[in-house]
């Protein structure tokens, strides 16, 4: 379970996020949706202790993120930011292998190798594993980042728009995999999604954020209504029953 207590961030000059009180149930996939600038990334990075809040608490799986030992926490929660840029020149495999650092402190053993290979194969990166990151397309790079976070084998995965740059096939593939990570391994996945239809189909819970506040939290059936989506996204949305869950149409 992820518990946010009065979580608040003040960016100054009138922009502030929160205070947010929220409980995200353990297991399953929770999607964070909302318009640009709503505060999704801010909330996610505060949960993943990459950004210090100005007030409030984050407790993940019983661990308070500000007081738990960082090394322990790194085996409980892993976070992928929306933007990633590295000065060091790494290959895909070297990057993914870094995900094992909390366990190995940089000394990779055979079991780690197996986990690394699995993550790489899973994201279709086998043939690219010895390529440098700067020799990949945006989508391929994005998959490598997610593979790295997965390789960290944490109970909680926080992903900020991991479908960025991905084509249809890889988007579906990634959501499919995250679904299985949740269902088969019992992990908790919190994911920022751009496309509400992906949220509707693949998540157990949808959390709608707007102007720095959580305005809705519920199952896809509860959230995927004309009224709610129109209000959250401030654009006319109609919802229809599709062949596999509700579909939002907004164009």
């Amino acid at each position, binding site marked *: 379970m992820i518990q946010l207590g009065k979580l608040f961030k003040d960016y100054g000059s009138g922009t502030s996020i929160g205070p947010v009180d929220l409980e995200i149930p353990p297991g399953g996939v929770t999607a964070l949706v909302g318009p640009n600038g709503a505060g999704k990334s801010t909330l996610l990075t505060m949960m*993943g*202790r*990459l950004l210090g809040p100005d007030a409030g608490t984050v407790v993940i799986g019983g661990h308070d993120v500000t007081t738990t030992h*960082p*090394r*322990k*926490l*790194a*085996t409980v929660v*892993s*976070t992928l*930011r929306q933007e*990633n*840029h*590295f*000065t*060091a*020149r*790494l*290959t895909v*495999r*070297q990057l993914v*292998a*870094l*995900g094992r*650092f*909390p366990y190995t*402190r*940089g*000394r*990779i053993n*055979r079991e*780690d*190798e*197996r986990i*690394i*290979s*699995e993550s790489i*194969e*899973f994201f279709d990166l*086998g043939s690219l*594993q*010895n390529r*440098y990151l*700067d020799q990949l397309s945006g989508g391929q790079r994005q998959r490598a980042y997610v593979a790295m*976070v997965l390789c*960290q084998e944490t109970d909680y995965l926080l992903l900020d728009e991991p479908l960025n740059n991905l084509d249809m096939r890889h988007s579906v593939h990634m959501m499919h995999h995250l679904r*299985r990570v949740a269902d*088969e391994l019992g992990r908790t996945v919190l994911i920022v999604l751009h496309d509400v239809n992906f949220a509707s189909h693949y998540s157990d819970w949808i959390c709608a954020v707007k102007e720095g506040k959580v305005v809705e939290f519920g199952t896809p059936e509860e959230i995927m209504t004309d009224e709610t989506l129109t209000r959250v996204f401030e654009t006319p949305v109609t919802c229809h029953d599709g062949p596999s869950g509700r579909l939002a149409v907004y164009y």
Partner: protein
Amino acid sequence: MPDTATHDAAVPPALHHDTAREGFAAFISPAHRRRYWIALVCLLLVGLAFCLGILAWDNPLPFGTRGFWRIAESRATSVVVIAIVAVSQAMATVAFQTAANNRIITPSIMGFESLYVLIQTSVVYFLGAVGVTAIQGLPQYAMQVGLMVLFALGLYGWLLSGKYGNVQIMLLIGIVLGGGLGSVSTFMQRLLAPSDFDVLSARLFGSVSNADASYFPLAVPLCALATVALYLHSRKLNILSLGKDVTTNLGLKHRRELMLTLFWVSVLMAVSTSLIGPMTFLGFLVAILAYQFSDTYDHRYVFPMAVLIGFAVLAGAYFLLKNVFYAEGAVSIIIELVGGTVFLVVILRRGRL
């Protein structure tokens, strides 16, 4: 995971074994690894050759006689100085660039050299030319090193601890402060008598002959200690080079690692600068060549490469200038000249940093 299992089964065991081995390698292929070791051994040989050259070349007495060894011994001081400076500048620059996540800056622009210049200038300004002799000696050297480390720690600590403290702001303020200290020194130099200025400018010129063997009891252990500490820190530096977010995500305390790295960097910079004076371009050149030659992100391999390059470059420049051009004082000029050219060639050929 059924998908992966079937995939694994489809891969021939030998092949699978190979891919598994590559993961813990710092190099992308055995060929890269081989190239690395060849380059390292070549540099070692070149370094040794220059070292021998400095000791034995143009020695007027026949090889093996007692007089020969006495002359070689006196020249050994230069070799030790070159070694200290090469190791310090190489380790410090690589570690600093990693901490700062930036491969075009060096610790010397962060105010170290300006502080050195300011200390030297103030002494001459307030005490006159005799002051220069007054700041030579082991205790004075220790004080100068201590002052520079304190300055650096104060600066880094202050800049990284605030709410908005981040590496970029630290760099910016460091550079501005360095510039400020530099201007103060320049102003004081304007007011000096020409003869005092002469004495001072000899000190401010990065030169192996500035060094004094009596500093070794402090310089050698400090340099060794910092080098070992940074080398043992390699695996963490590999993570640190990916920036604050990845570092935190992987369970390291970013600010702690950063301060620790910067502490050892400042020790090395202080040891080197106080020993021979400013060497702005050496670290820069060495680091860029080390990345180029080692072709890995892994500091366990980049560090030794950088150190050997530093030694070969510095010893080579010293040897050539001393024996071919009879101008051993101009080592820093030659390094900046050659270094700048090599740097440009590397950048233009690779099209990236």
